[in-house]
């Protein structure tokens, strides 16, 4: 007997494990009959998951946490048995802002501290000359993109709430908004950075892995109540996603995977662009300059699929730092409880796996992250909305 499931996703390359699980038959082999529903906004994905129109979803990791805490919306506890991707975002800037940063930079352009300090000088000059503040696009208030942009610019002394404008833009509108000057830069996932570069309207300034070596990006999310009633179905879905992630990570399968993902009802962009993303080989400048990084996007490899509660704690700490919520020990526990490594281990038949295999965050600045002392950690950062 097969189990019918409706699963929502946003057309982004980090939905790959979910899409391949369905289109390559890994889900069917686990006895699941999955209907993938392509959505246009994270709010829709969140709401449809929360009210039960979806059984599961490709979801921004911070949205899963915000929903569990009841931030910005009704409180619906969510659990994530699988991490669909680590990293995978990039910061893309307009040619004009790129030139301005490069003329101010003192050091290596790949060093986020050097670019953040250069950005601070650009911002100061603009203020002095009476120019409008720079505008940065990101995808959602509770998004890794928001936190990565803020983390980066604040390190250079730019206050993201006072010195620049941060605005939410749907990913498909990012490139146009950069081209027509509505935004000066954005942080978004694949394929949108590459598309801006291909069209000659943007330079990729940083991969998000320059800022954080290891950052949970999207998760496979289900309602906690659903997970309790459907534990075997959830384990089957987790295995299907893990097998699909393995498939995608084998270089000889990449062309086939990219071809499947490129179809219009899935991600709907050129297979070649998707493959570049999966290979971590991106064109970063309109002149054709390439940059390769084995850390650009991790789908399954280096233990990426196993949810790490320390990652959830880091995201919660960002919500606190930027005033989206206050610091509360019970809220921290709830946030960490969204990421469920033991559900992953049970699904994969490894119930005795070590529970403390955190790979760390690896931020380019500040002390190593310690989930047990978030207040102490945040005290190390000067700019923020959080008051101890």
């Amino acid at each position, binding site marked *: 007997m097969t189990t019918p499931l409706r699963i929502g996703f946003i057309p982004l390359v980090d939905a790959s494990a979910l899409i391949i699980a369905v289109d390559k038959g890994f889900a069917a082999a686990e006895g699941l009959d999955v209907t993938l529903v392509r959505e246009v906004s994270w*709010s829709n994905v969140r709401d449809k998951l929360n009210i039960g129109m979806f059984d599961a979803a490709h979801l921004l990791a911070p949205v899963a946490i915000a929903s569990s805490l009841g931030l910005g*919306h009704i409180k619906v506890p969510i659990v994530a048995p699988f991490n669909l991707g680590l990293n995978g975002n990039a910061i893309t800037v307009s040619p004009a802002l790129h030139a301005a940063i490069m003329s101010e930079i003192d050091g290596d352009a790949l060093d986020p501290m050097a670019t953040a300090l250069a950005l601070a000088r650009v911002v100061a000059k603009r203020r002095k000359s009476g120019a409008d503040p720079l505008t940065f696009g990101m995808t959602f208030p509770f998004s890794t993109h928001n936190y990565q942009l803020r983390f980066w610019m604040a390190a250079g002394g730019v206050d993201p709430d006072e010195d620049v404008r941060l605005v939410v833009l749907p990913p498909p509108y990012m490139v146009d908004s950069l081209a027509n000057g509505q935004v000066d830069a954005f942080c978004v996932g694949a394929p949108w950075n590459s598309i801006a570069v291909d069209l000659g309207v943007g330079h990729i300034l940083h991969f998000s892995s320059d800022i954080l070596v290891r950052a949970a990006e999207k998760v496979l999310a289900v309602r906690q109540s659903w997970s309790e009633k459907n534990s075997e179905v959830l384990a089957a879905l987790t295995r299907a996603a893990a097998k699909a992630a393995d498939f995608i990570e084998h270089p000889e399968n990449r062309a086939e995977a990219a071809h499947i993902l490129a179809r219009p009802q899935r991600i709907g962009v050129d297979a070649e662009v998707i493959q570049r993303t999966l290979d971590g080989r991106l064109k970063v400048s309109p002149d054709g300059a390439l940059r390769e990084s084995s850390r650009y996007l991790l789908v399954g490899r280096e233990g990426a699929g196993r949810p790490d509660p320390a990652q959830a704690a880091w995201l919660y700490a960002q919500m606190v730092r930027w005033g989206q919520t206050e610091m509360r020990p019970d809220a921290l526990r709830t946030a960490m409880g969204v990421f469920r490594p033991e559900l992953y281990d049970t699904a994969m038949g490894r119930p005795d796996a070590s529970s403390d295999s955190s790979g760390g965050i690896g931020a380019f600045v500040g002390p190593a992250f310690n989930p047990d002392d978030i207040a102490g950690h945040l005290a190390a950062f000067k700019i923020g909305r959080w008051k101890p």
Partner: protein
Amino acid sequence: MSAESSPKIVIVDESPIRAAILEEGLREAGYTGVVHISEMQSLLARIYALDPDVILIDLENPSRDVLEQMFQVSRAVRRPIAMFVDQSDAASIQASVEAGVSAYIVDGLKKERIKPILDLCISRFNAFAKLQDELDRTKSALEERKVIDRAKGILMKVKGLTEEEAYVLMRSTAMREKKKIGEIAQSILTASELLK
């Protein structure tokens, strides 16, 4: 504040017909301050310029995420919205998401004043969906009618049948093969194309 008389309502919808249906319904119900935005560029700035009490947006619109930003306080957002934060709102959310619409309420508007707006909005969205569905069905019924007529013509010509006989033949074949008459007609058209 104008909200005491009639709250100012902004409809964000790229479908002009649906927006008109909703706008008309709201006006009939006595809500006079209704503005429709169909252009998504600089959406937040336009909303702030209008300074509405309620914002209604269709769920097919990617710009819904832009509105979520209004929950935050930042340089871009000085007057945050607050809504649907207690569990009793779950039923409203369910009904509106199923109808394909979402409502954002700017802080300060009383809950009992929101409910009739939301209910009206949900019923108009459902009415629009039903209309759309009927239109689609009428269209496909018309298409099917055309296919059946063409298949009838082919049978009349090839087998020398009357119109009535051609129709009876298709209908009995459909019953025997447990198919719809439209499907049989389509197979006749396909076969006749192949045999040309």
